[in-house]
């Protein structure tokens, strides 16, 4: 019965192949799963290492590490208030400038610009988002700093600096470097990032909604204000928070133009320092003292926590929009 044996042999071979495939399937699933979970563990390991490295600083200074503004490498007294303040202030300034401009660009690209312009300008914005941050830092130092120092800051100091109540924020020597300059450079860096995300978000609004509004006689502004913005509210806020996360973690762009001073000053014209600039400047020589090194790693941990506090709500808000859009 040769045919039957052929069938039986075939069956055996098929069974063998099926077993092999099952094994390969398992191996494949296992390998890819390993890769995916390694991402998870990398983040945990990073946070853990930062916390572990910073434990000496935390245990020595306690909560005072965050509130003290003394950064004294000679007497090994480290308080991170000034760098934390600098990081937060420069990022807030960056957002205050970048958000309206990014909205303007996104609205321009989705509603205003003629269709032949939209693709190239949109592409240009995305390309600009890819310029390395060190270029922004260099441009800031060589071009913006002299410009601001000679033409803008003297005016600001003389006029805005004399106002009641908000004067101290604008008073100071026209050095050109300082927190205001760093905030401006950060803003310019973050604009293409937020603008391109906002553009994607605005484009996701179903055209039926907008067309219905137009059909009822709305002006473009009304469509944007009453339809697009409310629809994309969580995603827009999420995009802004992503930009904030980027600004908080930026190192090279600010180190060049911040001035690296640990003296606390509320003025935007005065130099300051940020967490990333402090770590980048001082890490190499800090290894001479375990407490010094631990303090810098503790700073990194604090930064990571601040970034997480910004990113997690952002992600949740973006997730909400995705759910609503049905993806």
């Amino acid at each position, binding site marked *: 019965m040769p045919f039957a044996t052929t069938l039986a042999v075939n069956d055996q071979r098929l069974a063998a192949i099926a077993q092999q495939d099952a094994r390969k399937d398992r191996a494949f699933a296992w390998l890819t799963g390993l890769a995916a979970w390694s991402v998870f563990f990398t983040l945990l390991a990073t946070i853990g290492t930062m916390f572990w490295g910073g434990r000496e600083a935390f245990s020595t200074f306690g909560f005072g590490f965050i509130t003290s503004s003394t950064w*004294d490498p000679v007497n090994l007294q480290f308080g991170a208030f000034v760098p934390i303040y600098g990081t937060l202030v420069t990022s807030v300034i960056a957002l205050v400038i970048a958000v309206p401009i990014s909205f303007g660009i996104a609205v321009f690209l989705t509603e205003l610009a003629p269709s032949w312009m939209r693709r190239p300008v949109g592409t240009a914005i995305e390309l600009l988002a890819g310029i390395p941050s060190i270029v922004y830092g260099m441009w800031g130092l060589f071009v913006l700093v002299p410009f601001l120092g000679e033409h803008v800051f003297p005016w600001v100091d003389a006029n805005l600096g004399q106002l009641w109540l908000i004067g101290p924020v604008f008073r100071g*020597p026209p050095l050109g470097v300082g927190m205001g300059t760093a905030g401006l450079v950060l803003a310019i860096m973050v604009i293409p990032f937020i603008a391109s995300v906002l553009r994607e978000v605005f484009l996701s609004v179903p055209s039926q909604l907008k067309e219905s509004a137009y059909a009822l006689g709305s002006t473009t502004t009304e469509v944007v204000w009453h339809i697009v913005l409310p629809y994309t509210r969580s995603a827009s806020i999420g995009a802004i928070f992503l930009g904030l996360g980027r600004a908080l973690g930026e190192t090279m762009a600010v180190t060049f133009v911040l*001035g*690296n001073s640990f003296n606390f000053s509320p003025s935007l014209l005065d130099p300051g320092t940020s967490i990333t600039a402090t770590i980048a*400047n001082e890490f190499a*020589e*800090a290894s001479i003292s375990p407490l010094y090194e631990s303090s810098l790693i503790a700073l990194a941990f604090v930064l990571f926590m601040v970034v997480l506090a910004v990113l997690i709500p952002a992600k949740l808000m973006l997730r909400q929009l995705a759910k609503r859009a049905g993806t």
Partner: protein
Amino acid sequence: MKITLKQSVLAVCASLSMSLSFAAEITGAGATFVFPAMSRWSSDYNAATQVKVNYQSIGSGGGIAQVKAKTVDFGSTDAPLKPEELAAAGLVQFPSVIGGVVPVVNLKGINAGQVKLSGKVLGDIFLGKITQWNAPEIAALNAGLALPNVRITVVHRSDGSGTTFNFVNYLSKVNAEWKAKVGEGVAVRWPTGLGGKGNEGVAAYTKRINGALGYVELSYATLNKMSHISMQNAAGKFVQPTLDSFRAAAASADWKNSKDFYLVITDAPGAASWPITATNFMLMQKLPTSPERAKAALEFFKWVYANGSKSAEALGYVALPNELVAQINAYWIANLKY
């Protein structure tokens, strides 16, 4: 863009095998103070012997840490380690070259060497007590010079450095309030001013801000055509930072009686001495991870003492006097087993 696994594994294997054979590359790290000289010596030595000496200027503190951790073959520092520290870390220390820390100023209408300052006044400026260039304390020292009513912007180092160490060591010697309030070290808590990263950063900021007063090593000042300050030394005379005034300060130093060459020569006596002269020190392990590389490093230093003085002086450093070199040779023979 994506390299196949095979290619990358081959590349890794090839380079590992290359590095396992004797690497004709010595690594050193440390002071930015001596970076111009190290750089020039390194490329000249490479041209002569094919040996690469890769020096990274990450600051004296970094150099000390790296050589202690044995991650480099030699470290360089402007702040000498005390003999106890050296013994504890198993290191030897010897001078390499002498230079000077120079206060530099950017003031419209003022040329190099015109402004005179004393140590105490310099300290007061860096303390933030004197804030304008036409302050009476400065005017008192500069009769006949019209100083503008411009704000003084202090520029210091944002990273730890032996340049800072020598500078604040000098300020501590001549200004009691500085000593009490700030003290000395490779990095200090600056009462006022901006921080630039490295000598380069201080020079960059000083050049950009009118009224800025910073401190850099002479070669950075010379190469950048910056205006230096004339300082009053311990003998009361006002001197300019020149190779001769550095040499005078170095000559007054008592090397013979120093243990492990621990000696800071700021505020040196002598009518012609520059008050902020600094010595750069090299650190090496007594028990290195690679004796061949350590030996090669010593060969490099021998070459530097013999052939490096001309290029060093072209950059604003002073070569070590011959007696000192002899003393160093004896020290090597006594302390190093390779």
